[in-house]
């Protein structure tokens, strides 16, 4: 995990110097301004989103869900997780904590892959708030149909990768949720 954190900051340093080389200080300031505006809009939402996920993890029987989408549930578990992910409302700040809770509860890695992909493709709130008003329902239908099998495909591919790489078995972060 430490290597990932270092990698991210190194990438940031490289990108920042690229922006500086091309646009100088004003470019870097504009980029930081974009980040600052996003951070400001997240400052209230993110803590409450994390709280929501933590409360739900305490209140809901996550263990029972894990038996439906556990690692041994195979294709059926992947299909169910893809559907559950598609029903999940809200942006990344609620979805990823919820995915983590289900992963910690005992879901299999391919099932979680299908869950996250299902959410990222179908996210209904995004369709209603942005996609349909901007692109129209006809485009929404075309895109949904074109993408409908992708979450299941992602789950199956993840399953194959884990089967082919002995010793590779992604585990959830050990945070006491």
């Amino acid at each position, binding site marked *: 995990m430490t290597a990932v954190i270092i990698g991210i900051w190194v990438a940031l340093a490289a990108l920042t110097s690229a922006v500086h080389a091309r646009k100088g200080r004003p*470019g870097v300031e504009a980029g930081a301004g974009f980040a600052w505006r996003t951070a400001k809009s997240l400052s209230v939402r993110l803590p409450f989103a994390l709280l929501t996920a933590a409360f739900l993890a305490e209140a809901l029987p996550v263990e029972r869900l894990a038996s439906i989408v556990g690692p041994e549930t195979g294709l059926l578990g992947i299909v169910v997780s893809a559907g559950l992910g598609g029903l999940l409302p809200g942006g990344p700040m609620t979805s990823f904590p919820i995915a983590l809770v289900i992963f910690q509860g005992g879901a299999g890695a391919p099932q979680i892959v299908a869950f996250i992909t299902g959410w990222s493709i179908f996210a209904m709130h995004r369709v209603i708030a942005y996609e349909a008003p901007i692109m*129209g329902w006809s485009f929404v239908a075309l895109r949904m149909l074109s993408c409908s099998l992708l979450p299941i495909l992602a789950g199956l591919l993840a399953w194959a990768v884990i089967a082919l790489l002995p010793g590779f078995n992604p585990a959830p972060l050990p945070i006491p949720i």
Partner: protein
Amino acid sequence: MALKTTDWVFIGLAMAAGALCLATGGWSAVVSALGAAGGLLWIVLPQLVAGLLIGGMIQELVDRDRVTRLLGAQSGMKGLGLAAVAGALTPGGPFTSFPIVYALWTAGADAGALVAYVAAWSTIGIHRLIVWELPFMGADLAVLRYAVSLPLPIIAGLAARWLVRVTRLRVQEATDS
């Protein structure tokens, strides 16, 4: 700072989930959820900050008008590939990406490229990987999900072209439908 409606939605969600948690598990469950949410926030915050800054810098490096012109003129597999790369590099939420989809369409991109762009933005977006998935899901699962999702946008784009050929689904002006 004035709270927006979305902030109140998150506060309301957290309060409803908190009430549910109190009703099912009592105060000890509420306290343990508060601790879990705090711990998670503490762990993901540094990576989140770096991710937001990376998004800001990418925003400064990419010339949107040029990308739009380039994509509008391309077709075939090259168009799908370019659209997928552009989608993966687009930072920010749906309020950034869907206006770009609209711009691409008016610039002449075909349905396949538009669907590949949206599929890439939602499944292999680098920004979301760095800001949300790596911190919450850990490197193993995040990298696995990302790797198996790489071919998905192309598959979605090909499916969209096929659907346009065999069905009556079309991309049309949002105000027409």
